[in-house]
């Protein structure tokens, strides 16, 4: 051990434990609670906001006015959400009984090492901790279950199965318009469940080919020559320049099935697509693309069986985790019709920027409580670094009751300040 290493090690030993709080021991009762109204947006995309259907607001949206400059009246979010969720031009396939409004409680704190966020919201039904499965039909492994907006689910051909999620989008002022219009900058016609672009059209598009993507996901206006047309993606080199200049928004998602069981939230960013950060994230597909069979199955000694059954679904925790209850798939294990395995396999062995965010969530008495820990000062090229004294713009979303894509409840943009005046003021921990 050389002298410098010794000094660093000593400093870490002395200072380390005092710098980072254990999120489980933070006294949240001392941290102010900010109630953020979330509402069902249906298909109110970037393009819809700029259409005549957004009555009396086109000029204002086009010139970059804030959504809240009009929608600031009492119960604005509740009124919009409860209207849209029932169906109409912005919701062509309403989900029966779906709630249009969710109140999200947000608390924030920080110390020298991390920022800590505590979120609470009431779920519409029971906790959504399952994800659709692969089910063996005697010949092939096929997807079983799906989110409530899927046609097969709405027609009763598949059961509603999907994980609950809590998402936070974050910018540090480098994305033009995010401070005013927040998440709506990323929500475009052509995305899944939002006038979904035809697969053939995506496959034939040069920009999408260059991005190596076969569907349209969230994107920022600056990634297109025409922000209202997903087909006009800028060259990869130009996207890289925008990214290097910080022209992306961070997207952190806590997932009840695919990240919570390993104590994490994923780390992504939106620019030309909804990307995951570099490195190895906590979940991966459980399907072998060549054999079309699962990659992993349950360890019968740990799980009690090598597979789930439809009868067990929803009654038994289905998480498949490497190093805990997963073993390599054995095609000769005597599979029978109805055997089910998770579509995703989880790991605690994350690597790089993809593994920055830790999170734990618990569901009690109809309410999720999620505590997210994000390191301060992240220097990765795909992260927005949180710093003491910094002010950021944030948007929130909750996916609840077995649903994904547009079926969330979202917030208008808010400010987050670390020790600085903002809508959500993170308190410095002693």
């Amino acid at each position, binding site marked *: 051990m050389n002298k410098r290493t010794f000094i660093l090690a000593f400093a870490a030993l002395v200072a380390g434990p005092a710098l980072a709080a254990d999120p489980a021991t933070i006294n949240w009762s001392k941290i102010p609670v900010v109630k953020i109204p979330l509402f069902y947006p249906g298909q109110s995309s970037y393009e819809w906001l700029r259409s005549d259907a957004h009555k*009396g*607001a086109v*000029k*204002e949206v086009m010139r970059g006015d804030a959504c809240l*400059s*009009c*929608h*600031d*009246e*009492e119960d604005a979010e509740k*009124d919009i959400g409860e209207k849209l969720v029932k169906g109409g031009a912005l919701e062509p396939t309403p989900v029966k009984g779906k709630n249009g409004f969710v109140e999200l409680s947000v608390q924030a704190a920080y110390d020298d090492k991390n920022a800590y966020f505590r979120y609470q919201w009431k779920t519409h039904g029971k906790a959504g901790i399952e994800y659709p499965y692969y089910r063996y039909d005697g010949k092939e492994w096929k997807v079983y279950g799906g989110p409530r907006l899927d046609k097969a689910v709405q027609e009763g051909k598949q059961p509603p199965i999907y994980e609950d999620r809590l998402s936070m989008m974050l910018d540090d002022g480098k994305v033009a318009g995010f401070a005013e219009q927040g998440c709506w900058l990323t929500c475009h016609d052509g995305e899944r469940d939002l006038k979904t672009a035809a697969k053939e059209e995506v496959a034939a598009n040069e920009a999408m080919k260059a991005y190596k993507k076969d569907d349209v996901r969230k994107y920022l206006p600056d990634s297109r020559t025409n922000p209202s047309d997903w087909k006009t993606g800028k060259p990869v080199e130009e996207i890289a320049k925008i990214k290097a200049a910080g022209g992306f928004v961070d997207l952190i998602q806590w997932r009840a099935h695919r990240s919570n069981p390993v104590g994490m939230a994923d780390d992504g960013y939106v620019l030309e697509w909804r990307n995951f950060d570099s490195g190895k994230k906590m979940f991966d597909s459980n399907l072998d693309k060549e054999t079309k069979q699962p990659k992993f199955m349950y360890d019968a000694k740990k799980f009690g069986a090598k597979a789930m059954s439809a009868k067990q679904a929803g009654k038994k925790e289905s998480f498949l985790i490497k190093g805990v209850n997963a073993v390599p798939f054995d095609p000769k294990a005597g599979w029978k019709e109805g055997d089910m395995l998770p579509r995703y396999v989880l790991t605690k062995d994350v690597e790089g920027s993809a593994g920055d965010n830790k999170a734990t969530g618990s569901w009690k008495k109809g309410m999720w409580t999620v505590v997210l820990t994000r390191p301060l000062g992240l220097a990765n090229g795909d992260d927005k670094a949180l710093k003491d004294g910094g002010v950021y713009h944030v948007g929130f979303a909750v996916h609840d009751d077995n649903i994904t894509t547009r079926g969330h409840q979202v917030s208008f943009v808010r400010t987050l300040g670390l020790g600085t005046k903002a809508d959500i003021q993170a308190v410095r921990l002693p």
Partner: protein
Amino acid sequence: MKHKIFATALLAFSAIAFASAPAVAGVDADAAQKLAKKNNCFKCHAIDKTKKGPSYKKIAAKYKGKPEGEAKLIENFTTEPMVKMEDGTEEKHKVIDTKDMKEMKNLAQWILSLDK
């Protein structure tokens, strides 16, 4: 009974919803707000903040002491006139979705009462 409900509504209105807006005899503030909200009036107007359109307090001040105020406001509610926005542009004013003159008068009177 009606008077009792009215009085309670006025108290609640002045104490909670619009502390800066005094109650005025003869005006059903609760009903006025409901009508305004139902017609998305608050998307462009606020009580005391400039939005796309002028604040209601500014409108009330403009017509203070002018007997034509109520008629002018009702004209705006019903005839879709071109009105000047706060950014200097002009747009057609939205027509309120009611044929009930009593409701419209109440809304106009409530707005005009906000100068106090």
